[in-house]
């Protein structure tokens, strides 16, 4: 009787070993929104991010609001971490970026200056 169950026991042990070993190391980890943000520092090209959203509708609404007050070439695009960001690319320097952020603040936007993803 014991011999009859032994192969089943072996099968069960092998089948369960892989998920147990994998799950012992924790479930898959995804970068948080904060880890996807690389604040601007030093010289080099920057981008101004108006906000990050999970929902495309909210991102598009933010972009449309920015376009409506006169900002141009604002895009909605994925940030590579599962979020959509509303962004203006190709800001040449930190000084220009700070001017742009101040201008945006005057019309009610909180803009973050970031290094573009490599």
């Amino acid at each position, binding site marked *: 009787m014991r011999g*009859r*169950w*032994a*192969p*089943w026991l*072996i*099968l069960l*042990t*092998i*089948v369960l*070993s*892989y*998920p147990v070993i*994998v799950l012992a190391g924790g479930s*898959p980890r995804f970068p948080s929104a904060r880890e996807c943000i690389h604040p601007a520092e030093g010289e080099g090209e920057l981008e101004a991010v108006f906000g990050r959203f999970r929902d495309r509708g909210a991102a598009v609404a933010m972009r449309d609001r920015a376009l409506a007050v006169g900002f141009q070439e604002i895009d909605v695009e994925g940030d590579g971490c599962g979020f959509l960001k509303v962004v203006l690319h190709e800001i040449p320097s930190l000084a220009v970026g700070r001017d742009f952020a101040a201008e945006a603040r005057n019309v009610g936007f909180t803009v973050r200056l970031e290094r573009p993803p490599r």
Partner: protein
Amino acid sequence: MSLGAIVGLVALNLWLFVVGVCVLFGLRGWNSWVELGRLSGLAYMCGVGSLGIVWVWQLTFSIGMSLATIFGSGVIVGVAAVLVGLRLGRRLPPRPMLRMPPLRLSLVAALFGGLTAVYLEAQFRAGRLAGLYEFDAWSFWVPKARAIYYFGGLDGQFFQGLAGQSYPPLVPALEAAAFHFMGAADAVTLHLQFWFLLLGFVGAVIGLLAGRVPRLLLWGSLLLVLVTPHVVDYALQPQADFLLDEFFALGALLLAIWLRDRADWALCGATLFLAAAMLTKREGYVLGVCALLAAVVVTRPQARSLWPRLVAAGLVAAALTIPWRVLLVARDLEGGGPEAGGLGLLSHLERAWPSLRLTLSTLFDFHIWLIVVPLLVLAILAGFISGDRQFSGYAALLSILCVAAFTWSTWAFPSLPITKAAAVNPIVRFTGALVLATVWLVPLLLADARRTEAARR
């Protein structure tokens, strides 16, 4: 990627399985519930094949694809198959008793089955978060599926603008069905649909060969093919190549079973899978001809009784693709014939030898297919020396014709460079058809040889 999407995929594949069980009932029925369990992989693949064919017809006749039509088509196929089964006198076995005798499992099956399960678990883990990187997958297979999902059918303008116009929409339809069940066009979780297909194929082969070949040969051969670098890397890519290979391998296996047992259900099953292969990729026509021609040649002594059946199987399989071919003509889309034209091979004779050399070097490339093809050659030799001559002949002819087909695929398309680079020549993917067939060719050939040797002693 979310748990909900995975649950949706499980539901779709359960539905394919249920429909497939009905198709299996129509094809052959089962003598016991244990036998149905053994053939559950085959049942699932029957569901994929039959519903895939129906979906291509449905799209061709401009019937939109939605959850309602996915269920409706399944109900129609299932009911029709059950009615055919009843008409043919098939009946369900008595209901299983509560106290069934315990199922026996051998040590070999436990060890190798466990390893296969671990392999599939690892593939699931890799596929769960796989990106859409393969060129053909993102350039036209998945866009076609998305178009079917969003627009409900084959949008004329959209499909005209895509590459691979002549490829039938069986795989895009299956992917669109997956999107419907997942609730979104989730191109990441979509890889898991191809995991279910791999699982179904593995289950079908095990179910069909169990009891016919020694366990060690069956599991060893299966695992060897599963761990080849190409299968490991590409089996879950959301494109049609692997499903084509799986359909072809199953169709050719059922033909082999028919050659041995003369069971009509096996020939009907082979017809179903070869038709599905033809509606998966245009290469399916060539592979279907290879399998049927090999069977025709080895049945020459019984030509009068067997050839009409084989010819009928080929005609039925090809006829099932007619609506799609008509649509191609009606919409003025590419037919997908050889680029060099009908007699173009003769004007490109200089490509013949390099194309053959490319085919052979691909098949024997350790870094792509390990030692699968050398083993096949040895198994065929063993079969000829001391096995069943008819089956060995079938295996040898099938292999030779497949090599010819792979060679033709490069020779007849002069724009393809002579290279194994997957981005510019599909030879590696195409050779997968023969390699997947070795999963059953090698164990059947060696088991025959062993049996004959034992009888001689």
